[in-house]
């Protein structure tokens, strides 16, 4: 198990190579409030600290606004609101960058946790009694030392249609 220092702006695509070969998948964990979620490292393009966000008036609350990431405009999506949680006290500090259909998005989280390499055998399906509004954005669950970690479905999180 390796650790990612949340203060580093790190490109995680390199780490992805280590996963997969021995039937393990690599995830990094993010915290939304006290809740922990996993994201597949192969899907993410970058993790970066949130700088200035330009809010977009008249947009739904899940859209925090636009971030300038090295000259590129990124649409920032609040994970917290997207997952139906109550707004937090402090603004999110970490963003995970994705590209979808040629457009750039970033999911805003409170902090980044460990990177986990988890075997296929640790995977379980979502239990049916999960809240539908939340489980809509979860792909599966993984068992690990810290308990069950829901893996987020980025495709759905970024689909606003």
């Amino acid at each position, binding site marked *: 198990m390796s650790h990612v220092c949340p203060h580093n702006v790190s490109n995680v695509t390199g780490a992805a190579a280590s996963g997969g070969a021995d039937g393990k998948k690599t995830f990094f964990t993010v915290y939304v409030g006290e809740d922990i979620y996993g994201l597949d490292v192969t899907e993410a393009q970058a993790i970066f600290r949130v700088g*200035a966000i*330009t*809010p*977009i*008036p*008249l*947009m739904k609350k899940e*859209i925090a606004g*636009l*971030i*300038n990431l090295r*000259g*590129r*405009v990124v*649409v920032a999506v609040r994970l917290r609101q997207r997952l139906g949680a109550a707004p937090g006290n402090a603004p999110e500090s970490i963003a995970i960058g994705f590209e979808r*259909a040629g*457009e750039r998005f970033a999911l805003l989280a409170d902090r980044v946790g460990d990177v986990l390499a988890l075997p296929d055998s640790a995977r379980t399906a979502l239990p049916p009694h999960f809240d539908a509004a939340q489980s809509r954005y979860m792909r599966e669950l993984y068992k690990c030392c810290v308990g069950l970690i829901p893996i987020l479905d980025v495709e759905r999180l970024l689909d*606003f249609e």
Partner: protein
Amino acid sequence: MDELLSEFLSETAEHIVGVESYLVLFEQNPADANALTHIFRLLHTIKGTCGFLGLERLRSIAHAAETLIDTLRNGAPPALPAVSLLLQAMDRIKQLLAGVAEHEQEPAGDDLDITGKIEAYLRGELASPIPLPPMPEPAASPKCCSGRAMQDAESLMPEAEATPAKEKAPDTIRISLATIQRIMDLVSELVLTRNQIVELSRQHSIPQVKAPLERLSTVTSDLQDAVMQARMQPMNRLFASIPRLVRELSIELKKKFSLVVAGADTELDRQLIEAIRDPIAHLIRNCADHGIESPEDRVAAGKPEAGKISISAFYESGQVHIEIADDGRGLDADGIRRTAVERGLVSREAMANMTDDEAYRFILLPGFSTAKAVTQISGRGVGMDVVVSSVEAIGGAVSMQSSRGSGSKFVLQIPLTLAIAPALIVKASGQQFAVPQQAVIEAVSDGGLQKVQNALVLKLRDEIIPVVELATVLQLQPPSRSADNLVVIMSVRGKKFGILVDDVAGIQEIVVQPLGRLFSNLKLFSGNTILGDGSIVLILDPTGLAEGMGLELTSGAANAQEGERCKVSHASNLVLFKAGSGAPKVLPQSSILRIVRAGANALCQADGLHLYRYQDRLIPVLPIEGREGKMDAGFVFIITGHDRTFGLLAEEVLDIVEAAVEIQLSSNSNSIIGTMDLQGRAVELIDTEHYYELAYPAALGIPRQGRALSERSHQLSAPKPIAATLNGESQSTSVNVQQ
């Protein structure tokens, strides 16, 4: 698609345009051997490439066309049918090319209809393949040439192949638009990064960095210019297709035209050239159909038989101007006036004060046409508004000039490029927004701002301009209103409006980037940009703002309504009075029979109505909307209409002013016709009809006040004019009131 094939498609499309314009040249001047040589060469190249790619249908048409050209080259008398046949062949080639572009192969079928006609023509069997105006001279037998032509065509091949290479003097490569776009994006990023470094070095001032930074700065600017240059293309891309269009119009309208094209080498962003293609074609059709008279009329007017259509492109003040002019009859200002009044777009009075230039603006409205006959080409009243909106969509503008009897001129002003534009950076609730400068007229202090009918209006010089607070429209946190707020006045399609902002931070050249698909529903924003300090700002869309305010941009409906309501009153003397806390109100003096000062005990209440005893009768009195508190002393305006009399209660009569009734903003409220400008004040014009309906709800049925009233009011139908005397220059009068 296969690279070879896509290159063939774009190349051939250009060749076809070339062939068409040379054909028209040749037709105008059959002695022009040079034109024929060009056509032959272009056709030959098309034929060669088609054969190479195995496009058999295309090859056979090109071959037939080439053979026909060759007979002409060899001295066969030129004739209109030949040119028409060749143009038909070009059309078919274009159709086939479209098919190839779609399916990467030729559509099934054959082209014997065209090649057969050409062969028949060559045999001399086909004098006139399509019904056309009489030929200048009957085609003499070109039969004798056809056999030789074939041989000649073959023997000419080497020469024909050698020459196109010679023509391509400047070395060129074809680059896909996507590649150029990618380079543009990268340069844009470079510009932004440069701006950030410049900003940083200004803050920290490191002397060693200064010189290299300056070099970086100039190189970046040069690179930007160079890449912009790469997107530029000569206007000839568009102009080359005009001769053929004019030729077809000439045949269809049975008029003669001479076409003058200038400035075809003026360069413009390729995307913009494509955007103005249809507007320009439309303007040319208008010139040909409406502008230029029939040959007989022209001769009678002492003009040359052929109408002149001229198109020119040139640079002026950082823009490309494209002028489309004709020497025809000019716009019919009277006809436009008549139609505008008939359609209720403007009152007769207002129209009388309009200059011809102002009247011309009506033709830019949708559905406005003075044409008596709808032709195939134009006159259905669709078009000019589309021309205006497509030009405005790319940040351009349309203007026109016309003089009766000697022609009209339309000028399109087009920005050089879409990608970089100057913008005003404004602040609302602490957030910055960019406003495209092309829409901005001026920024003024909010001193003249008034609240009327719960909406903001700005009195600026002689205009009343609707204003919205940007923070309110965008639902931002309410701003802390300081004293020095600004109103940015914009104009969209001739309609002015303003946005109230906290501050204007400056003007910057911005690189416009589109917003993502996620934001396609946001009509108020057209894109975003990164400023020099690295911050992202949203670009406001003036059209979206105007539409959001309810300004009618696309239809004349609101104007029509306004015009009609205007016509209700023809008064020039207006009684200005106060009722309630809102803006002062006015009523035309002619609609008021008498103004009476009423004490508190003069009003009584019965049957749910307030009543006033007027000349031994009781008449209903209504408070003017907006008036607060209970009905007590005030001024009663005695108003008659539809044989009934009623009263309106106002607080105070302020003045009587002579002014034209020109509603500038129509109202949503029933009780108010609209807001108008009266000697620098925004005032509300009261709708007496509304109060009449309130006073007599059963207007068509039994009168509330019984027959006696209606009889009495009948006697009063010739009202005594209000007792008033004009008081010198101020044109105000004092009002005599009855106690």
